[in-house]
């Protein structure tokens, strides 16, 4: 199971907002456990899809110099469940950004039907967890993530 919950960016406005899509398919093993007999995308993984969309948006705003990790789910609400065969549109906006942290708002839709609203807070860990040492290289923004950015016009 790869830990990548978005498939591509369809819109990217540096420092402001981004839109990504995710296809949901029976090829994803975890669906067969959630639930056996009726597969639906776990809500927590929808939160992760938003975290990756918003996290890359925040990371790119600082030229991927910061290690951006999810620090707090401020609020999330789910209105409908998602099944294999669905395509999700994940829209994220930067609400606030500071040297140590950033706040984002966002929503997930399926063909204009509202699936979820998710507001998150990210921490730039090198600036925050005082005393804790992290590996030098930016392990958060791997090549896999950066490759999602290719072909996006700003």
């Amino acid at each position, binding site marked *: 199971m790869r830990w990548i919950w978005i498939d591509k960016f369809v819109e990217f406005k540096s420092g402001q907002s981004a839109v990504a899509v995710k296809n949901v398919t029976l090829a994803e093993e975890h669906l067969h456990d959630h639930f056996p007999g009726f597969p639906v995308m776990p809500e927590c993984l929808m939160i992760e899809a938003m975290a990756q969309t918003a996290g890359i948006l925040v990371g790119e705003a600082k030229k991927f110099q910061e290690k951006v990790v999810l*620090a*707090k789910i*401020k609020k999330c609400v789910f209105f409908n469940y998602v099944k294999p065969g669905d395509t999700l549109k994940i829209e994220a906006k930067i*609400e*606030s950004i*500071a040297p*140590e*942290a950033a*706040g984002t708002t966002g929503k997930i839709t399926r063909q204009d039907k509202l699936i979820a609203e998710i507001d998150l*807070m990210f*921490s730039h860990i090198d600036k*925050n967890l*005082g005393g804790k040492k992290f590996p030098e290289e930016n392990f958060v923004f791997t090549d896999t993530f950066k490759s999602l950015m290719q072909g996006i016009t700003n």
Partner: protein
Amino acid sequence: MLEVKDMVMTRDEIFEKVQAVLVDALGVDEEEVTPKSTLMADLGAESIDFLDIVFRLEKAFGIKIPREELFPAESLMNNPDLISNGKLTAVGLAELRTRMPHTDITEFQKDPSINKLGSLFTVNAIVNYIETKLK
């Protein structure tokens, strides 16, 4: 259009808005947020919450709040010149007074242990700070 910062707000109005921000950011009940409540000990706020609170206050009041201006703890705690034996030195206390003019440090001064720095971050301190910023 009249912006929030152009409106004259009474102290009570400021308190109500600050209270609403803390209820949302910390997931506490309104009743728990009194003027004397400390953010950390009483309301359970932690490092990430301080940042969330700053962002929300900026939005609620339409002002810019550098985090270290409202919550200067970290730079005070990490500066060895201002601390001796786990307590703020006289220089440290002077620095604290300059950085937090919106807070009453009389009680804290009696035993200026850095572990107790958190007790200075009260709801009142935030209301005082906002009041000053809005003038």
